[in-house]
Structure formats: structure tokens, C-alpha cells
């Protein structure tokens, strides 16, 4: 195809909003190859894609080393570090054609890594998964069985279980009120980027520091006069030893990649340009992670190695990152100062970095795969924001990331942009272009609000609060010594629709047939709305307490039973203190409760207040009977509750006041419960795919919902089709919430029309909307901008729409990778005209 012909084709695609075809034509040959080389790792309908297989190499290596160390006198933390080091030293590694960056948790590109030491129930899922066992199936099932049998009773969860309150544990494991399992090695691990990624040090420097710490401690404990104060040093020296084992293993595996790149260059590769690239890879991997990076390629490679090793140590469900901030200085040096890279070459590197992140995968339990359809975990990368002194932090790499994202069109990582009033117009235009081209990201975060929020809830000092990144989908977390949170257990995630369900059943859960909530009495005896609300508050506190107790327990005992020597080794507070990074006493804390299925409560309470107590159209007895029958035989009544009770998102104080009241009760309670660091537990309404995952778990509700209906799509978003008064009304409803003190953050989905937002006029319309959003003090908004016609076509011919992306909830996914029910749910979302 000639250059003018190619250009005409690109314009044609863009005119028809077929951004994915235009991207294919625009990106470099290298990026096109690497983009198409990705094996899709997100589960579709809870199952991994054809050809994606569980990796058996790591489990076999880890098990053989564990057996070897069984009678070793080493403390557990040292044994664990040796197991992981053995895996890194002996696993298969690979370098993809045309790649400039290397490193993957699995042994081969189509494999997903399985940690057999995490949880026995996870290993059972590996064994029973019909699609992901590699060939030959019979032989490999035997291997899985042997590995599973060895670790049975020895996994992290097996060790932790006896410590939990049995009653709480049964309620959590029932799957009705929470999402996740409390494990230190299974969650969303923040990183102390201020220690690790500012160019001041790398692995060898940390090893040297730890060596000194051990030497000092050793001298103290061998003093002639034994002192009580020296007792803790013995354990610290064990932790430090384990940290060194991990860091040295990290340096060794990088050198293995260097060696492989050299072998390929010297023995196999005939193209001179590719030979040079391979030798550059070798040079890069000799340098990092042992020593600080010197250029953009080394900086990105350093980041990949850190993530790879961290995800070998633990199952990480998120990727907290601020890539433009920490890699930006190297981009500036290479592209603007030394001019060793052209912008196009830099975009190739940045685009590949996105692709490397997109292909990361660790075997996750089915509830996670169903809750996060189409992706492995929420890699929400934070762009923009401010520096520690409050000045604008956006740089050329901020723009480069967004340009690269439009070329490679991965759904994960996804970006969230920290908006503030001084963001330049050129950056806003890049954000708009990403949204307009249907990426579903960046989401917009109101930086001044969220900095104040971090200071309010967790007392982070302002300069630390300004470093914040998304710890998972939504919650801010500093990247500082005492501010960063080493794990966030998904288990403090509440299926809040159950609060309302339990008001009407006095805490009995019909789906799992057990008493889960509080006994709040027979709702038929409630004579006014205040009694209903009082019961609601009691159920809310009961559910939240169950989850918080479990997570607190895991956080307290985790460091001893299930340590994280690698994450400790890259965290200043652990290198300094000799304590495991999850030890609460050295952390400020940054906990929150994710509140799935929140708005169902608001609409349901409003419906009860209006139709039962204000209009007196129905009695509580009639409502309870209809709910108990799942509305069967009461369709007219159900439609009444759907249509004739006020709904959230329409700037109607009747229901909006209920939202604020509920949030403030939760906020009050958030300050009564404590995390092990002594800090608060604010709530954060958002959903991931919980609205689909819980559809068959949550029963009928007074908002007119039946068992099996999809729940609302997330956070404080109005129910699909229930926001009737336009986008400004939605914003005005949301603005009645105090986004600093009423909770941790509040997810808002909005769907916009691609045709309305064309051209300069479209940009100005969107910018005005953002201005209103910011002025109203709302902390979050995210957009879908794909029309119904495209989505319906994608349902009919998915093979032609592989790179169409939609915003699901706190993450984006390729539309063809999510379930039909979720697809229909997204199509039902109201398209707002600005």
C-alpha cells in the first residue's frame, strides 16, 4: 500500500470512528508485531482463552526446593526467599522477536504462573480447570496433583485459617458479602517508589546497606554484656538475610536475560540492526536492576524486573504506578537533552512497555476472574498530578504514554489522570483524544480533592499525599516510606446490596442459607422509615465489621506466617528496621473498604420511604411478601417500585439526601473501626464487574430488582437508564456528597456520544463538562465513548472488533472479552448529551 493510500485509509477509518483499524495502520511494524503477539490472559466468562495454559515449571521448582529445605534449620523467611530464588535461577526465560524489553512471570508467552503455596483452594481450581491444563493433559494433571498434595496444609491460607474467627470466616467464604481472601501475598501491593525509583539507588546499593545493618546488629548481639534490647535483632538479621537472597536473585535473573540476548546476537541473528538491539538488551540487563538506570530503556526495564520479581513472590492483583513521573526524567534526557532517541523511538519503547504490562498474568481464583472480566488485575497507572511542592508534574512522557496507548490499544494497563487547575491545554487534548478514540481511559481524578482526602482520612502529610498513585482501581496511596501500603486485601470488599437485603430478612441470607447479618427484627413491624434506616445502619456495621476483623487479623499475623522478603528489600522502612514490610507498626496505614453494589441501597431506601411510609401505597408486610417471592405475582407492584420512586442521579433531594445520610453513617463508623496501624477504614463505592458477578447472589430488592438481574454498574453511578435528567443533573447529585470527608473516593461512570464530541467543538464541550465536574468538587469520572452500533456489531462479529475497548468499572476491557451480560449492561448505560 502506498503512503498516500495508507494515509487516506487511516483518515477513512477515523472518520468512521474505527479507531482500532486506524491504530493498526499508524503504529510501527515493531509495535504492530508485538501487539499481535500478545496471548490474551484475561478470563472470558471466568475461563482463560484457548491456548493459554497454566505454567507448571514454577510450582515444580518451588516444590522441589521446599522439599530440600524441609529439615533445614533456616527460619521460614529465609527458606521462602531461597525457594523463590531457586525459581528465578532455574525458570525458562525468553526474548520475543522485535522486543526491546524483557521479563515475564511465566516460563513461556502463553503460560500463566501458578503459586502453589498461596492457597489450597486455588490449587484445587488449577486442578479442576478444564481448559488451562497444558498438554499432555494426563501427565500434567498428575504433576498438578502431586504439587497440590505436597502443599496441602502448608499454604499461606492454611496457615492463616486457624487464627481467624470461625464465624467470620464462614460468612466470608460463603461469597455472599465479600470478595476476596485475606492474604499478605494476595492483594494490591503498593511500592516505596520514592526509595526505589528516583535514581538514587538500586539493588546493589540496597544489598550494601543491608550488609552494613547486619554487621552492626551482629556486633551488638556479640557484645560481652547481653541486653534485652538486642533480642529483636536476631529476627531482624533473618529478615535482612532473606532480603539479600531476593535482591541477589533479582540481579542474577537479569544477567540471564543479558546472556540470552548476547547468545542470540552472536549465534542466531543475521540482521545487523536487530543484532545491535539485542546487544543493547544485554547491556541494559547487565546494568539494571543491579545499578540505577541511566536512560529510558534501562528505567523501563528496571520497572519490569521489579514487577516480575514481586509477582513471583506474591499474587499481585494491581499495579500501582506513576510511570510518567518516575520515568519522565529519562525520557527528557534521551529525547530532549542528549537526543539519543527520537520521539518515534521513544514511543516504540513506551508502547512496548504497555504491551509487557498487558501480558502479565497469574492464575487467579474464579471469583476474581468473574469479577474482573477480560483482565488479570487492575493495572491503573496514575499520570499527571503535582510534584511534592504542588507544581504541575505533567511532562513530555505524560503525553507520550497517551499517544502510545492510542497506538497499541491495550485495555490494561489503563490510565487515571490526576487533574488539577494548572494542567496545560495540550495535555487535556491528549486525554480527550484517548477518550474520544474509545479507550475508556484516562479516568479523571480531581487532584486537589484527593490530596485533601488522603490527609483527612489517613493523616498523610501534604508532601507525601501529593505523591499518590492508585493502589488499585481508585484509592489513592502515597509512594513514600511510611505512607505506602504493602498490601490491600481484596477481602475488605463488601457486597453492599446485602445490607438492604438483610434489612428485609433480619440478616438471614437465603442464597447461602445462613444467618450472616444482624438480627434487626421482623421488618413487618417497622412503623416508620427511621426504624428501617436504623436497621440499615446496623446491617452496614455488621457486614463491615466482619470484613475488617478478618483483614486486620491477616495484617497482624501475616508478617510472621507469610513474609514478603522481596517487597521488604525494596522498602526503606524494612531495610532500615529489619522488619517485614507488612508489619503494621512501621506503616501509617491506608486501608479502605470497597463498597460494591452501593446505590441499590439508596434507591431501595428511597422507594420504601416514598411508597410505604409517605404515600402509604403498600405496607411493609406486603413489600416483604413480594420480596420473599422475588416479585413473582407482583409485577405491577414491582414496576411501581421501579418507576414511581425517585432514583439517584436526577438532582432530586428526596433520594440524594438519603445517599448523603447513608454515606455519613458509614463515614462515622469508618472512624470508629481501626486498622492495625491505628488508622481509619473509609468506604469507597465502586464495582469492578461485581454487578454481574453478584447478580445471582443478591436477592430481590425494593428498587424493583429481581434475583438474577444485573446490579448497577458501579460506585455512585445511577442505575442504567434511571438517570433521566441529563449529565448536569448527575453531576449535581454527585456534588451533594463531600468527596473529601464522606468516603475514600466515589466511582462515576458516564457514557458520551462519539458524534457529539467530534472536532474542536466537541473538545470544548467536553472541557466545559470537566470544568463543571471539577468546580463541583467531584473526585472521579470515567467515560465510555463507543456507540451502540459498534458494540452490537462487535457482539455479532467479535473477530473484527478485537481492539474495541470499553470502560467496565474501575478498569477497561476489550469488549469481546467480557460476558454477554456485561456487554448488554454497558450498552444499557445512558448516553449523555453534553
Amino acid at each position, binding site marked *: 500500500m502506498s503512503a498516500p493510500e495508507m494515509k487516506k485509509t487511516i483518515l477513512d477509518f477515523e472518520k468512521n470512528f474505527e479507531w482500532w483499524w486506524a491504530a493498526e495502520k499508524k503504529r510501527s511494524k515493531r509495535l504492530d*508485531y508485538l501487539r*499481535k*503477539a*500478545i*496471548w490474551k490472559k484475561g478470563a472470558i466468562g471466568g475461563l482463560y482463552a484457548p*491456548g493459554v495454559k497454566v505454567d507448571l515449571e514454577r510450582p515444580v521448582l518451588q516444590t522441589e526446593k521446599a522439599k530440600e529445605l524441609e529439615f533445614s534449620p533456616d527460619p521460614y523467611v529465609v527458606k521462602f526467599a531461597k525457594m523463590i530464588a531457586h525459581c528465578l*535461577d*532455574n525458570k*525458562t*526465560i*525468553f*526474548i*520475543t*522477536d522485535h522486543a526491546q524489553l524483557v521479563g515475564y512471570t511465566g516460563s*513461556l*508467552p*502463553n503460560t500463566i504462573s501458578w503459586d502453589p503455596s498461596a492457597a489450597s483452594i486455588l490449587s484445587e481450581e488449577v486442578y479442576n480447570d478444564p481448559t488451562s491444563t497444558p498438554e499432555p493433559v494426563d501427565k500434567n494433571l498428575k504433576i498438578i496433583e502431586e504439587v497440590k498434595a505436597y502443599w496441602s496444609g502448608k499454604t499461606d491460607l492454611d496457615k492463616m485459617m486457624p487464627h481467624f474467627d470461625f464465624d467470620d470466616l464462614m460468612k466470608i467464604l460463603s461469597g455472599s458479602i465479600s470478595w476476596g481472601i485475606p492474604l499478605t501475598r494476595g492483594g494490591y501491593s503498593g511500592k516505596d517508589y520514592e526509595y526505589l525509583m528516583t535514581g538514587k539507588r538500586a539493588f546493589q546499593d540496597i544489598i550494601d546497606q543491608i550488609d552494613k545493618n547486619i554487621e552492626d546488629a551482629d556486633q551488638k548481639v556479640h557484645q560481652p554484656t547481653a541486653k534485652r534490647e538486642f533480642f529483636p535483632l536476631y529476627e531482624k538479621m533473618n529478615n535482612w538475610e532473606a532480603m539479600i537472597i531476593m535482591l541477589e536473585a533479582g540481579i542474577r535473573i537479569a544477567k*540471564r536475560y543479558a*546472556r*540470552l540476548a548476547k*547468545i*542470540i546476537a552472536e*549465534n*542466531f541473528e543475521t540482521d545487523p540492526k536487530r543484532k545491535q538491539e539485542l546487544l543493547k538488551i544485554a547491556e541494559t540487563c547487565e546494568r539494571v536492576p543491579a545499578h540505577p538506570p541511566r536512560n529510558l530503556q534501562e528505567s523501563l526495564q528496571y520497572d519490569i524486573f521489579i514487577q516480575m520479581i514481586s509477582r513471583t513472590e506474591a499474587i499481585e492483583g494491581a499495579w500501582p504506578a506513576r510511570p510518567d513521573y518516575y520515568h519522565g526524567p529519562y525520557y527528557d534526557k534521551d529525547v530532549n537533552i542528549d537526543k539519543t532517541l527520537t520521539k518515534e523511538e521513544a514511543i516504540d519503547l513506551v508502547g512496548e512497555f504497555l504491551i509487557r504490562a498487558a501480558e502479565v498474568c497469574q492464575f487467579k481464583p474464579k471469583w476474581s476472574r468473574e469479577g474482573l472480566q477480560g483482565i488479570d488485575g487492575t493495572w491503573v497507572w496514575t499520570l499527571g498530578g503535582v510534584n511534592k511542592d504542588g507544581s504541575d508534574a505533567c511532562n513530555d512522557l505524560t503525553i507520550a504514554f497517551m499517544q502510545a496507548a492510542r497506538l497499541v490499544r491495550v485495555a490494561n494497563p489503563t490510565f487515571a489522570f490526576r487533574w488539577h487547575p494548572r494542567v496545560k491545554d495540550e495535555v487535556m487534548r491528549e486525554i480527550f483524544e484517548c477518550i474520544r478514540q474509545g479507550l475508556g481511559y484516562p479516568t479523571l481524578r480531581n487532584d486537589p480533592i484527593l490530596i485533601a482526602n488522603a490527609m483527612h482520612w489517613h493523616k498523610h502529610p501534604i508532601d507525601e499525599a501529593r505523591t499518590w498513585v492508585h493502589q488499585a482501581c481508585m484509592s489513592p496511596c502515597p509512594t513514600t516510606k511510611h505512607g505506602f501500603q504493602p498490601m490491600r486485601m481484596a477481602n475488605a470488599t463488601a457486597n453492599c446490596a446485602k445490607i438492604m437485603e438483610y434489612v428485609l430478612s433480619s440478616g438471614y441470607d437465603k442464597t447461602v442459607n445462613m444467618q450472616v447479618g444482624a438480627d434487626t427484627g421482623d421488618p413487618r413491624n417497622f412503623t416508620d422509615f427511621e426504624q428501617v434506616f436504623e436497621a440499615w445502619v446496623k446491617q452496614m456495621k455488621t457486614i463491615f465489621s466482619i470484613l475488617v476483623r478478618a483483614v486486620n487479623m491477616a495484617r497482624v499475623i501475616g508478617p510472621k506466617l507469610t513474609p514478603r522478603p522481596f517487597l521488604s528489600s525494596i522498602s526503606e522502612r524494612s531495610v532500615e528496621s529489619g522488619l517485614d514490610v507488612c508489619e503494621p507498626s512501621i506503616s501509617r496505614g491506608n486501608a479502605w473498604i470497597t463498597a460494591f453494589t452501593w446505590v441499590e441501597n439508596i434507591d431501595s431506601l428511597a422507594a420504601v420511604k416514598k411508597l410505604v411510609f409517605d404515600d402509604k401505597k403498600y405496607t411493609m408486610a406486603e413489600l416483604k411478601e413480594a420480596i420473599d417471592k422475588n416479585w413473582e405475582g407482583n409485577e405491577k407492584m414491582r414496576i411501581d417500585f421501579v418507576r414511581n420512586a425517585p432514583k439517584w442521579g436526577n438532582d432530586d433531594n428526596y433520594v440524594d439526601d438519603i445517599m448523603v445520610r447513608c454515606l455519613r453513617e458509614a463515614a462515622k463508623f469508618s472512624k470508629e473501626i481501626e486498622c492495625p496501624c491505628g488508622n481509619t477504614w473509609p468506604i469507597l463505592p465502586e464495582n469492578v464487574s461485581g454487578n454481574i458477578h453478584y447478580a445471582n447472589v443478591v436477592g430481590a430488592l425494593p428498587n424493583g430488582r429481581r434475583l438474577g438481574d444485573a446490579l448497577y454498574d458501579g460506585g455512585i453511578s445511577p442505575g442504567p437508564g434511571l438517570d433521566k435528567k441529563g449529565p448536569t443533573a448527575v453531576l449535581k447529585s454527585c456534588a451533594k456528597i463531600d468527596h473529601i470527608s464522606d468516603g475514600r473516593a466515589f466511582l462515576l461512570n458516564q457514557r458520551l456520544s462519539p458524534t457529539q464530541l467530534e472536532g474542536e467543538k466537541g473538545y470544548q464541550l467536553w472541557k466545559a463538562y470537566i470544568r463543571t465536574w471539577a468546580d463541583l468538587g467531584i473526585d472521579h469520572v470515567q467515560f465510555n465513548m463507543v456507540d451502540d452500533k459498534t458494540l452490537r456489531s462487535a457482539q455479532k462479529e467479535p473477530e473484527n472488533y478485537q481492539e474495541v475497548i470499553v470502560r467496565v468499572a474501575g478498569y477497561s476491557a476489550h469488549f469481546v472479552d467480557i460476558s454477554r451480560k456485561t456487554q448488554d449492561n454497558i450498552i444499557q448505560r445512558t448516553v449523555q448529551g453534553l
Partner: protein
Amino acid sequence: MTTCNHCKHYFPLDEDQTKGDCVRRVEDQRQSYYQSKPVEANKDASSCPFYSTK
């Protein structure tokens, strides 16, 4: 005995000739790559499907 160090895919370590890497080219359904796995020089390769004499 057929051992890894006689195979064309075997590349010994400079610092320790008793160990090396088995490097092979692979083409799967989506991409082509070179993979590397650590092996002992005297590992029995008689049942290795990829063995090829140097």
C-alpha cells in the same frame, strides 16, 4: 551417553563449564521467540526431543 553439552543448543557458562543454557527458537501461534533454560553439561539428553549434535 548423549549429554546436553554435545547438543548444538547448549551454550556453556564462561565461569562454570559444568553448567550452561539450552537455547532454542520457538514459533507459537502468536509469536516467535528464543527461550533459554539452565541445564547441567552432563545431563542425560538421550530422551530430549530437541537434541541435535553440534
